[in-house]
């Protein structure tokens, strides 16, 4: 059972592109009894697209370096991005179970004065919110209820799969993020192919901008089937894909303009936290949603 103190691993996109999401996490979690502490010096996780795709040890050692920062804090890691969660947890698993690889990694880490010990676990923020804080506490923490507001929940791939080592959710029938969304009063609506990819990962956004938008468009057409008021996710790369991707589709003359939120942004607004700090950066407009349902300009 994790403690109430976590080593906060922010990744790259949240601190450097959506720091309002970072604020929303920093400010909502302690109000629910989960204190978050900075992992000073933490670098990229790194994800599967680059280092893992050419060779294993470089990716594994960079992940191990990040994990050693949490080990020195004696706190479990709270990952707030699906990619960070998947690759840090996968690395932690490999390093705990494969002595030969652990020794190779530690030989390299020794050059920078670090040693991986295998003393901390990696959790996704959705697990912490759902499993350890619980929906009841979240329900009781909010001042503004979003009754009747329809949300399309997007889990994203690396919170669910590969399930044999992530073990965060039922990979075919996840429910945690839906339950968290409903704790805010919203209705999590059904839409076809809910578990499918947003189209951003693996280097796709950079390697093939046309295909990445095509995959997103299919996803959005499925989402539109349920006519939601917003899309909710707990992965910043999926968030970015929905936010910037819808703008990309609008630039091509397509009609996609569904407000997108990272879960803690809605949680923060529902707790009465200021919009400027917790939900003010997006290319796909959200002000109308926030004005309509929270009454905030």
């Amino acid at each position, binding site marked *: 059972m994790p403690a109430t103190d976590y080593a906060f691993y922010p990744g790259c996109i949240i601190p450097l592109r959506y720091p309002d999401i970072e*604020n929303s996490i920093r400010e909502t979690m302690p109000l629910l009894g989960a204190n978050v502490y900075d992992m000073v010096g933490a*670098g*990229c996780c790194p994800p599967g697209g680059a*280092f893992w795709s050419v060779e294993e040890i470089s990716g594994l050692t960079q992940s191990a370096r990040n994990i050693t920062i949490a080990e020195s804090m004696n706190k479990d890691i709270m990952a707030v*991005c699906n990619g960070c969660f998947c690759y840090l947890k996968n690395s932690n698993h490999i390093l705990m179970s494969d002595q030969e690889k652990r020794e190779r990694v530690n030989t390299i880490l020794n050059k920078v004065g670090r040693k991986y010990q295998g003393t901390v676990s990696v959790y996704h923020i959705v697990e912490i919110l759902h499993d350890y804080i619980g929906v009841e506490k979240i329900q009781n923490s909010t001042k503004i209820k979003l009754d009747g507001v329809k949300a399309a929940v997007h889990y994203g791939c690396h919170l669910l799969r590969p399930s044999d080592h992530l073990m965060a959710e039922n990979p075919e029938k996840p429910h945690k993020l839906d339950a968290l969304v409903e704790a805010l009063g919203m209705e999590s609506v059904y839409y076809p192919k809910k578990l499918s990819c947003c189209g951003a990962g693996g280097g796709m956004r*950079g390697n*093939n901008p046309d295909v990445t938008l095509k995959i997103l468009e299919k996803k959005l057409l499925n989402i539109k089937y349920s006519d939601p008021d917003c899309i909710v996710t707990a992965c910043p790369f999926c968030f970015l894909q929905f936010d910037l991707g819808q703008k990309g589709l609008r630039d091509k003359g397509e009609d996609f303009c569904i407000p997108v939120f990272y879960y803690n942004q809605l949680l923060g607004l529902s707790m009465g936290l200021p919009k400027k700090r917790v939900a003010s950066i997006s290319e796909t407009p959200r002000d109308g949603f926030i004005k309509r349902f929270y009454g905030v300009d």
Partner: protein
Amino acid sequence: MKIILNNTNKDLVDKVIENGGKRVTECFQCGMCASGCPVASDTDHKIKRTMHQVLLGLDEQILDKKAIWLCTTCFMCLERCPQNAGPTDVVIALRRMSAEKGIIPEAQIEVANNIYHLGHAVTVKKGISLREKVDAPPLTTAGSDKKYIDEIQKIVDSTHAVKLLKIRKEWKPKGDDVIACD
């Protein structure tokens, strides 16, 4: 159905196994992998065909093409494969073999160089100005201090990745767009 391997394809299968696609020979070509694949219908990346090509030893048809780099690594195929043949692991193994031949897309090189020089997959300067706009506390991650970036550089320099990802000593990011981070 069991696919019988002959001498001509043995090397490729062994190399894929060595690079992490450990269960590739379990594939019996049911097509479950392609059924959930988000890119199968829009790109040349046909995962069922790739699995078959590996088993047949048709390496030049896979490694010289860009298709394997169009996988979004969503792991749907790996999750649903009834044989647990790990198609995503096979794709990653093929990427590793392709990179050994010097074939690697620009996006991968760009992201790796960003991580090596900035500590992050995305540029830092723009991030710091966004942080100021929303009253976020000062950055404390690797991008905040050269001493952390030095650590990452020492780590990468100790591995083969420095050559495979064409890490440059002088680096100027192309732009502030987020091109890959998952």
